């Protein structure tokens, strides 16, 4: 049994190497959400990597709405056993199942919806959550969204629906890193009090200040699970630092969609010990 604390450093190595090879991809948000993915896939979620089924009956489901952080998603799926870790080396290359943004189109186990065009994942998750209720399936539906993504109007259509229709088997996490492509979210389009907004839409809102502290994320997700089934969807506003884990990449939007060069990769990898073996 691999200690859960071994995962984040290895996943960050995967992310860095995946985007370095094609010199393309989104490392910043991926590294900021590494603890979240680790906690979700290696602790709290009840899922079945060995026998992936698109219909997801009898297991918890996860939808990545901000599809551009595909590197952390792919690394986590591979390290969970959905597909061989060696396949991570094909990210963004021609004929790969690991497309720039996640897709079901090429049959990659673990992916249940295409995402990348922002704002659609919460609606998809609401549909899947309603599907579970129709099946009397007690399992949960998890999502992840960027904070910048919340500028998309469809998010609030879905939020209104989920609150009004009491979709209480749904936990939506917001990666509140305060960054988007053109700068900080406050510079681009300030969104005010996100927690108050979700509350006003009928959600039960939890806040996590330490989104890069693995044990804190585990505890927050466990707490979120205890809040399901009570008539409200659950929102977890999780503060993270974009690029967390590598000092020169952390806390800036500069690494949103830029790959490290050879020298930067070497310096970054030196800060992320190889805990589980590189692909």
């Amino acid at each position, binding site marked *: 049994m691999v200690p859960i604390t071994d995962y984040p450093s290895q996943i960050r190595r995967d992310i860095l190497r995946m985007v370095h090879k094609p010199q393309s991809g989104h490392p910043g948000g991926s590294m900021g959400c590494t603890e979240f993915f680790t906690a979700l896939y290696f602790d709290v979620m009840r899922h079945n990597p060995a026998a992936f089924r*698109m*219909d*997801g*009956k009898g297991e918890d*489901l996860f*939808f990545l709405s901000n599809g551009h952080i595909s590197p952390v998603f792919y690394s986590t799926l591979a390290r969970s056993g959905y597909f061989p870790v060696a396949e991570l080396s094909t990210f963004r290359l021609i004929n790969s199942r690991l497309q720039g943004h996640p*897709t*079901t*189109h090429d049959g990659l186990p673990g992916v*249940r*919806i*295409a*995402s*990348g*065009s922002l*704002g*659609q*994942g919460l*609606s*998809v*998750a*609401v*549909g*899947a*959550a*309603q*599907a*579970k209720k*129709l*099946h009397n*399936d007690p399992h949960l539906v998890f999502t992840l969204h960027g904070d910048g993504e919340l500028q998309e*109007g*469809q998010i609030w*259509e*879905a939020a*209104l*629906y989920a609150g*009004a229709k009491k979709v209480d088997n749904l936990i939506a996490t917001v990666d509140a890193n305060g960054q988007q492509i053109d700068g900080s979210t406050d510079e681009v389009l300030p969104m005010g009090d996100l927690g108050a907004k979700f509350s006003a839409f009928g959600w039960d809102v939890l806040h996590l200040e330490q989104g890069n502290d693995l044990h804190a994320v585990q505890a927050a997700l466990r707490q979120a699970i205890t809040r399901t089934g009570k008539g409200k969807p659950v929102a977890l506003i999780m503060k993270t630092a974009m690029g967390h884990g590598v000092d020169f990449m952390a806390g800036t939007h500069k690494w949103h969609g830029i790959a490290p060069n050879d020298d930067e990769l070497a310096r970054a990898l030196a800060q992320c010990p190889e805990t589980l073996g590189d692909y």
Partner: protein
Amino acid sequence: MHPYINQGSQDTRSGFGAGLLELGRRNPKVVALCADLTGSLKMDAFAKEFPERFFQTGIAEAHMMSMAAGLTIGGWIPFTGTFANFSTGRVYDQIRQSIAYSDKNVKICASHAGLTLGEDGATHQILEDIGLMKMLPGMTVIVTADYNQTKAATIAIADHHGPVYLRFGRPKVANFTPADKPFVIGKADVLLEGSDVTIAATGHLVWEALEAANTLAAQGISAEVINFATIKPFDTEALLKSVHKTGRVVTAEEHQRHGGLGDLVAQTLGMHRPAPIEMVAVNDSFGESGTPAQLMDKYGLNAAAIVEATLRVRNR
């Protein structure tokens, strides 16, 4: 004279409503979503009989489309219902990413298509939806001609795995296809055999094509009328077989010339068997307010326009 009898004019949307209700009783996997147009889409009977399988999303079409994609993940077969304009143009990216690219088994059912929506005017009269939907890889596109065919198509698409766009309309039009005729996706129907011209029609223009054939017969012109209810996958064989006989084609549809059935027929002929073609369609303009009959007359989408187009294509 063509042998078809109007069994009593009905709206095609009511055919959808009747088909959906029957599906609800027949197939427990069928669920339905509607964005505040339950009455207009004739989905009330399904909603009343199967409240647990009906999802009222409010006026939130983008959300409805992505939510439908999510429902398929649980193995359900979602049918979405709203006007054609809100089923396509308004939600194109949701359909493209969450449904078509994700290969989700969603049935997008669209009423009030085209000019015959009438008095509401151009904001609601989408004439570009066939083109938008047929461009999406993997999307099946169906445009039905009357009540019976719409009901049959609604039932048929539940058994087809993959995304489908089903287009129908608001006004009462002739109901002339047999009530018990199963709908076969991808198969065009030769309604009337003829030797001088092929009239390839879809939707509300199919009955007009039959009426045009009567007028043409009186002038000694033998028209073959084909109902292309499935736009995609297109029945190339049916078209070519007919054109081998007639050598010329008139297309007829309640849609823009750009991107519609006419475009598709021209492309098919160009690739396989070049032949003169005339298109009865809206020519690069928006619609406007008016009664359906006034609009179809003003924009040249009726039997008289098909007759004129036939005479033009005969002289080429």
